[in-house]
């Protein structure tokens, strides 16, 4: 069912009651992400991208409108969604494998099954030999890979990714992007990716959504018509990439506005 909608925001508005006058972070946003699709969300800082992520994961309730995951209204945290942030949020007192099992452990999945899942993910992400290490013994890129494994371990249908690679160096980022792309493809996961990196948005996604300055609205939607979504390094070299990036720069007024 290619047209099955996994993640949907329907007329979502978010206001924060902040010192006397309320602040509207997001205004009337509607997004639909289909099964297996990877959609990127870009926009200026403070346009409410992360607010949308919190709403999707059920951590905050929107002021108006609703979010839906697998057709069910999001009323609170649920097992269908998992998120990953710029910070790896690894627990320093847990080994790599124990960190990967953190989510499944909370969900009460039997010990044997959670160990099996963690081992399989560590194999896939080339972390198997580090399973007994503690986070402080790992590089930033490896820590972020552990965070990805922890996110995938709960077997969510939808992944919400908030600038997951913005804290790692440029080369590691490319490696991680490739691993993410292949993992998403292999597992057939649906993902909403928040990023500031226009090239990352273009190379990793099927569609890119552009948000305006606060109050954030969706002002453009660009379908990325380049093959090989699971090969971002190959995609990078595609001639169409420059056009897409240029169009995104235009939509974001980059070059005409002071940063």
């Amino acid at each position: 069912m290619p047209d099955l909608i996994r993640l949907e925001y329907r007329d979502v508005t978010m206001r924060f009651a902040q010192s006397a006058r309320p602040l509207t972070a997001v205004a009337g946003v509607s997004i639909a992400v289909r099964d297996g699709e990877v959609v990127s969300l870009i926009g200026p800082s403070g346009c409410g991208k992360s607010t949308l992520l919190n709403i999707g994961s059920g951590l905050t309730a929107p002021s108006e409108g609703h979010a839906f995951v697998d057709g069910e209204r999001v009323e609170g945290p649920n097992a269908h969604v998992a998120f990953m942030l710029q910070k790896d949020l690894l627990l320093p007192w847990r080994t790599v494998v124990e960190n990967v099992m953190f989510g499944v452990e909370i969900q009460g999945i039997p010990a044997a099954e959670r160990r099996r899942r963690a081992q399989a993910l560590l194999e896939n992400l080339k972390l198997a030999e580090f399973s007994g290490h503690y986070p402080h013994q790992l590089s930033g890129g490896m820590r972020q890979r552990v965070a990805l494994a922890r996110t995938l371990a709960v077997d969510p249908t939808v992944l919400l990714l908030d600038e997951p690679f913005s804290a790692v160096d440029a080369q590691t980022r490319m490696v991680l992007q490739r691993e993410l792309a292949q993992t998403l493809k292999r597992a057939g996961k649906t993902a909403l990716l928040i990023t500031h990196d226009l090239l990352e948005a273009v190379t990793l996604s099927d569609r890119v959504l552009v948000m305006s300055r606060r109050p954030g609205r969706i002002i453009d939607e660009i379908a990325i018509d380049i093959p090989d979504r699971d090969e971002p390094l190959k995609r990078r070299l595609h001639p169409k990439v420059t056009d897409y990036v240029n169009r995104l720069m235009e939509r974001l007024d980059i070059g005409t506005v002071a940063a």
Partner: protein
Amino acid sequence: MSEAANSSVVWKGTVASVALLIVFLAAWQWGPGLLRIPPFIIPPLSMVFDEAVRMWHVSGLAFHTGVTAAEVLAGFILGSLLGAFIGYMIGMSPTAEFALSPYILALQIAPKVAFAPLFILWMGFTIYPKILVAILIVFFPVMVNVLTAIRTVDPDLINLARAFKASRAQIFWKIEFPASLPPLFAGLRIGSTLAVVGVVVGELVGGNMGLGYLLSFGEGQANTAMVFVAIVMLTLVGGIAYLLVILIEQRVLHYMPKRAQMGF
């Protein structure tokens, strides 16, 4: 820091430490004589040592040291447990923290040792008022450290757990409690040395047992060497308590980077 450079620091540091100790002991032994300081002001090392042997046989030095050590241990354990418990309780309830903070601050400012005479009035010349002073004085650093630790846990970590549908108890046991352990141990280190202070003040104020009693007894007799022996023994008791905390800490916090653990 590389392994080799690290071991060279340890080696050189140990040599310097031992050299410093020898210089100190030598200065204690011969310094007073050279500077013509009379023995009733600073008795030389050998005299203090002789006095320690005399006290061991005649004044029950071992017994008094044992009493003080037991009081320190009891006060430290009870004070730490109470401090940690209250710290976690208040840390998990912002309302309780708001309501209690002025009183906690007031009690923290009040000099705890000043309660010693009061406790002796209440409980007589027993070991209990000494333990109580130690409990009171150990309580605060432990509680404040736990409270601060709970309050400063990264909210994104809590959100991560919440997104996995963690219960309040799971958030506490899987995140807040382990995250609070390093600051808790920092509080315990401070508490272990303060426990000795609390006990000694209690013993000085009243009673006929413990190193604090020997301290004031020696003072009454103008026996400076005896006072020195008591001070040395108290330092030993405090040092052992501190060392025990460090040993437990290294076991519990084994996951911490080695360099963060090094040093006292």
